[in-house]
């Protein structure tokens, strides 16, 4: 069932289109920096001034640029569509006729959504690495600590960063899945989910609610940048993953509760 679900989801044209956009952003970024020259040291978004120094930083700059919007947007689209999409198409009823049960259907939806989170972050880094290696030098990588590590070590760290970014989206995915169980209108579920990202991002910037910040699911989204320090710093990454786990537990349970009590008419 999970395999079938994964195959169905990843063969959809709109899902492929989302992934194409995620590939296009770092590639476009790399070409823009290559043609126009990147910002000078100490200017522009994090890592963008280094994108032309090394292919590894092209990939990381791609992550920094896609993390606040493009990746969450694609997660929101996928999560919002997960259950509400089936309901709006009238296929949810038929899915539930099978003996698999509602809980297992939800679990399959959640697992495929988690897979999509990982794939989304991975394609950004892979595309960034490819574009960066083609256009820019690929020698030893200068870490944020000013030390130099071998290129392959740098590639490994950027792939690790993509895993962390993918896992950082689990909380958002769980909330999106819950919202998706509430409605039969997928576009509403997507809008609400992306709204959550925006609200959390705004709250994260308001110092008057600093006590809330450690609980906001967007708060540690930038923690992957600590993996480019030397030695690597895992403190914020673990906090991030723990927080995402909490969100998955709460909203996964809520989605389950909604799913098993829901009147499925369509």
């Amino acid at each position, binding site marked *: 069932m999970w395999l079938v679900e994964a195959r169905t989801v990843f063969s959809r044209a709109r899902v492929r289109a989302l992934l194409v956009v995620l590939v296009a952003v770092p590639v476009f970024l790399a070409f823009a920096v290559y043609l126009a020259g990147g910002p000078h*040291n100490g*200017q522009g978004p994090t*890592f963008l001034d280094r994108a032309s120094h090394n292919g590894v930083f092209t990939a990381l700059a791609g992550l920094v640029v896609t993390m606040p919007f493009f990746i969450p947007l694609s997660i929101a689209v996928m999560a919002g569509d997960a259950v509400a999409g089936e309901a709006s198409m009238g296929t949810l009823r038929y899915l539930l006729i099978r003996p698999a049960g509602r809980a297992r259907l939800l679990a399959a939806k959640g697992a495929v959504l988690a897979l999509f989170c990982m794939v989304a972050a991975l394609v950004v880094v892979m595309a960034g690495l490819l574009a960066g290696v083609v256009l820019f030098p690929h020698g030893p990588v200068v870490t*944020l600590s*000013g030390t130099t590590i071998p290129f392959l070590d740098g590639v490994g760290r950027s792939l690790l960063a993509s895993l962390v970014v993918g896992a950082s989206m689990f909380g958002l995915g769980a909330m999106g899945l819950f919202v998706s169980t509430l409605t039969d209108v997928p576009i509403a579920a997507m809008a609400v989910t992306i709204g959550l990202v925006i609200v959390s991002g705004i709250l994260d910037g308001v110092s008057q609610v600093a006590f809330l910040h450690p609980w906001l699911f967007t708060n540690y989204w930038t923690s992957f940048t600590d993996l480019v320090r030397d030695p690597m710093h895992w403190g914020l990454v673990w906090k991030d993953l723990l927080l995402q786990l909490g969100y998955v*537990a*709460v909203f996964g*349970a809520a989605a389950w509760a909604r799913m098993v009590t829901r009147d499925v008419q369509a």
Partner: protein
Amino acid sequence: MRYLRSKRGPYAVPAVVVLAIAAGTVAPSVTGASSPPSLPSVTPAQLVSEVLSAKAPQLSGSLDWTANLGLPDLGALQGAVGGGAPNAFNPLTLLNGTYQVDVWLAGNQAEHISLSPAPGQEVDLVRNGDQAWFWDSSTMKVTHLTGLSGGQAAPSQPTTVPMTPQQLADRLLSHLGQSTSVVVPSTVYVGGQATYELLLTPKSAPGTTIDHIEVDVAADAPLQGVPLQVAVYAKGQAAPALELGFTRVQPGAPPAGELTFSVPPGATEVNHSVSLTRPATPAQSSTGTGSGPSTLGSGWEAVRTGTAPVLASPQYQTQLSAVTTVVQVGSQQGRLFTSELLNVLILPGGHYYAGFVTPQALEAAATAAGA
């Protein structure tokens, strides 16, 4: 399975999950993470003498620096202080928030301090012998200082009046005792190390903003006598206004690789040679008109005063007005910079009054001084 048939039953599960997370978060702070270490009791004088006789430590570790000063938004000062590239490290950012600081200390010989002021940025200060490097990752700039007085070459200065740390501690405490109550009320673990807590509380000083200061001193070798945590509490605040303390301590010589710095490819290096031999006569103030600072009052209520023409210069007035409020002092209009600890009163002409005292105490000092 009856509960599944009810419309509300299943929602108990997410509710229980939320409660479990809340309980898991709150429980450690309520029950106390661990009981305090049991250590033989010491007098403040013994503890201070341990601090004075402690050797420069050898360790690797992490500290948390927390500043909770209730400052106005210092963004307006960015241009005046940060300088250069917009992402360059601005030390003022450290006056607000919590930052993890990693340190590698090798006695007097070398040290390495590293922190991340913003995501994707790291600044490092490495000193080894007579040279030091300052690295800012966002600008890829290395400032290389040479000619520092090498720590290893400096033997302990023979003092004219030989004093043991114990005598020095006694003298220090008898001097401090007039204004401050010094006690060792408790023990606490800091970064996994057993420490004595030295508590300094101002005596009969209603004007000061400082409620008390805690210094946690390691009790056991090899770090015996090394302060591992310092916290300054402002009056009326439960959380410290400033706190610097170890969260992880690993005694022993740090890896040699952390105690040196080689300029990475692509970085710009700026070299400075530092001469620490002081000129025979104090250098003339570059402004010429600024009068030397002096101190009014004593102890916790001391107020530094002086004249800094830069505070009156027109080019900084916009920045200054962004971080201060206007107050009336006598017949003059002054500007007041307030925080939980430090307050500064600036009068026309660049006369300033600064201290860890309340704004009222500053205004009183200014009035008494004839402002």
